[in-house]
């Protein structure tokens, strides 16, 4: 099967507005340019479902953090295989399921959110590790499951205000 940016959008219901219900699925090769490309498609698909701007920004940011982690850590530069995304829009929120066949999470668990200490020096500031803070802030019902050689992450994003 080709890895080339297949996008399927099916709408069970053509009605726009808060009750819009739609299911989106994407597959991508695990590379950073493909992540960027897919985020653009996801954003356009969510626009078509009537998602407000703030919700688009949340979805793009959280998906960027998750997909970038999969490319950098689960696949660690290996370009074989693919990542699949399923998104089901339910009124003001979207349920996501993201699967890959890369390495499992360390210790089989999701990383904790990392906060900087209240008092820190500039030299001691971390330059990474903020991705899970962003993900955990926005993602509700975040569940990681390893099954055979497959990672599956599921969560829900509210598409309300950024705060």
């Amino acid at each position, binding site marked *: 099967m080709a890895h080339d940016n297949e996008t399927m959008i099916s709408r069970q219901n053509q009605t726009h507005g808060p009750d819009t219900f739609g299911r989106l699925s994407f597959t991508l090769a695990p590379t950073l340019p493909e*992540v960027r490309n897919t985020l653009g498609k996801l954003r356009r698909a969510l626009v078509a479902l009537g998602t407000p701007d703030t919700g688009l*920004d949340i979805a793009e*940011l959280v998906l*960027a953090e998750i997909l970038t982690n999969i490319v950098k850590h689960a696949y660690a530069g290996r370009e074989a295989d693919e990542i699949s995304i399923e998104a089901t829009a339910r009124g003001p929120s979207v349920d996501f399921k993201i699967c890959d066949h890369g390495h499992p999470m360390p210790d089989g668990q999701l990383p904790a959110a990392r906060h900087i200490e209240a008092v820190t020096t500039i030299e001691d*500031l971390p330059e990474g590790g*903020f991705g899970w*803070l962003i993900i955990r802030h926005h993602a509700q019902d975040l569940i990681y499951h390893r099954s055979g050689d497959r990672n599956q992450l599921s969560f829900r994003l509210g598409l309300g205000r950024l*705060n």
Partner: protein
Amino acid sequence: MQLETEDLHDARIVTVVEDRIDAVCAVRFKEAMRGYIEGGPDRVILDLNNVTFFDSSALGAVVASLKLAREGQSFELCGLTPPIAHVFRLTRMDRIFTIHANRDVFQKVD
């Protein structure tokens, strides 16, 4: 990764021309910032007004830039769009950086 610079009095303003800083370009961005900060004037200001997508990779590159400032040199930010301001608030980096609303404050100085 397209950046523009303008030197005004004792300050250098670096403007990100593109609308996103992400994992694709964060390393190149960081290396470009190193070139503008090292040997640069006492104030280097990064104008992010054109940037609407900014993730944790971008934040890491901006933190790395702050660490590159020598003693007596400041690295400041301006023009944070709402999605960037959100990332700074959430990670508490808004308490670490000097952040200006926009670049006008620098251009009016004479």
